[in-house]
């Protein structure tokens, strides 16, 4: 019996071929095999005969929604002054989506980056994606040459070793704490739906930090981000970061310096995370792509927790409701606003 992911791969290829052959979509956004073990690469397939290159595995860690706006643009007919006027609807793009990615697509629709009518969401229930870093950490100093995937275990092979490890133990932190692994937006179902995960405390990692003192939290923050090389991979891989000019590139005013100064790096991370407030789906891509292994996802996770507690909203769950920061209610909590004032001495009050 082929593994679940092998069966899903077959189904993806068959459905993608059908969509392309019938002319339903102009392109399919999926994954192809990567050149190193435990990697995949995003792949845009435009011809039915290329569909055999599509794969599905436990290492599909890049959020495909990040490429969706560009993929949609790339299939539009040219619109120069001499080009013939385009008649009828614009071509569609099909995209693979798990729970979090589908929520990112919902956010892109809410933010008018993607037209709902132009996307065909091929929904795949996620069983959690594996962290390459966690696997490598189990084999310090050894080179991993291949990893074979079973449904519940991974066989890791090197030049002179082969070891079987438990799959769930190396699943990414964000997938382990995920409660909505099944896509919220599905046009075409691939494989079996997966049920909502009962997670007693999805914000455990955040709460561990919250329980520390202010000085300890500051020490954690400074330590966590001290190795950042400002490559901006975390920003570039995130489907929320589509600004034509990011605040880090603004020159007048320059919000953050471009040096590796710890303050500039800290500011970059605070502001980047803050820009994702109410929009982040905890897809974990930012954390996965960081070459330095920095857990910047904890900042967005903290914001997700507050947005849920204060406004009862989880990003991308309801296509028809506005994003949390583009709306308000009259009785939003305002505990942080100064109300209790220190008494002012009379003499000062009377201006003496």
């Amino acid at each position, binding site marked *: 019996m082929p593994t679940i992911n092998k069966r899903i791969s077959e189904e993806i290829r068959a459905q993608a071929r059908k969509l392309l052959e019938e002319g339903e979509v102009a392109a399919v956004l999926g994954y192809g095999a990567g050149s190193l073990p435990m990697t995949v690469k995003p792949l845009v397939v435009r011809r039915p005969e290329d569909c055999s290159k599509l794969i599905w595995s436990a290492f599909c860690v890049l959020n495909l929604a990040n490429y969706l706006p560009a993929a949609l643009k790339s299939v539009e007919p040219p619109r120069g002054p001499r080009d013939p006027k385009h008649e009828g609807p614009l071509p569609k793009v099909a995209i693979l989506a798990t729970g979090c990615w589908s929520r990112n697509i919902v956010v892109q629709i809410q933010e008018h980056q993607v037209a709902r009518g132009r996307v065909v969401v091929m929904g795949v229930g996620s069983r959690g994606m594996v962290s390459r870093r966690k696997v490598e950490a189990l084999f310090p100093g050894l080179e991993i040459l291949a990893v074979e995937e079973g449904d519940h275990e991974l066989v890791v092979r090197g030049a002179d070793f082969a070891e079987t490890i438990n799959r769930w133990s190396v699943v990414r932190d964000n997938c382990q704490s995920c409660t909505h692994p099944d896509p919220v937006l599905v046009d075409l179902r691939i494989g079996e739906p997966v049920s909502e995960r009962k997670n007693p405390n999805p914000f455990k990692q955040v709460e561990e930090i919250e329980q520390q003192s*202010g000085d300890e939290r500051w020490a954690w*923050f400074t330590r966590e981000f001290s190795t950042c090389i400002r490559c901006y991979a975390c920003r570039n891989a995130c489907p929320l970061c589509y600004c034509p000019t990011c605040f880090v590139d603004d020159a007048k005013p320059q919000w953050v310096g471009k040096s590796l100064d710890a303050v500039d790096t800290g500011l970059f991370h605070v502001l980047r995370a803050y820009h994702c407030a109410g929009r982040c789906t905890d897809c974990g891509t930012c954390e996965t792509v960081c070459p330095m292994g920095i857990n910047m996802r904890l900042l967005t996770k903290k914001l997700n927790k507050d*947005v849920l507690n204060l406004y009862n909203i989880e990003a991308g769950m309801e296509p028809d409701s506005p994003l949390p920061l583009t709306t*308000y209610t009259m009785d*939003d909590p305002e505990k*942080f606003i100064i109300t209790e004032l220190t008494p002012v001495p009379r003499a000062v*009050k009377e201006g003496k």
Partner: protein
Amino acid sequence: MSETNNWEPKIIAFLCNWCSYAGADLAGVSRFQYPPNIRIVKVPCSGRVSENMIMSALKSGADGILVSGCHPGDCHYISGNYFAKRRFALLSNLLDFIGIEPGRVSFSWVSASEGEQFAEVVHSVTERVKALGPASRLVKQLDAVQAA
């Protein structure tokens, strides 16, 4: 920067033109004294104040930051302060999360007729910042940059 007895904090106050700024004006006209530590930046609405502006003030060495707008329901642009309230709630929690001392960045509502309240807010904010001492977290120190 060493803390000396005569250290006085610098506090950047982003005040909404239609209420808190007028409140500051009224405090002056009515001769309510308040500490001279604040440096006022007039903004069209509390909704105009972005996280970038707040963090930039902190980075540039402000010991405290105050953002003050119209009372909920009184915003000149109807709802600017409601949006601002959501944004600031999340920002102040995030700053607390990374270990920025609570009290560095404060928010208040002061209307144009509340000169006395304005003076009290400034007193309160200045006291809190004085108790915290000079800001050092997320403050860019030029000598550190030059040494690096």
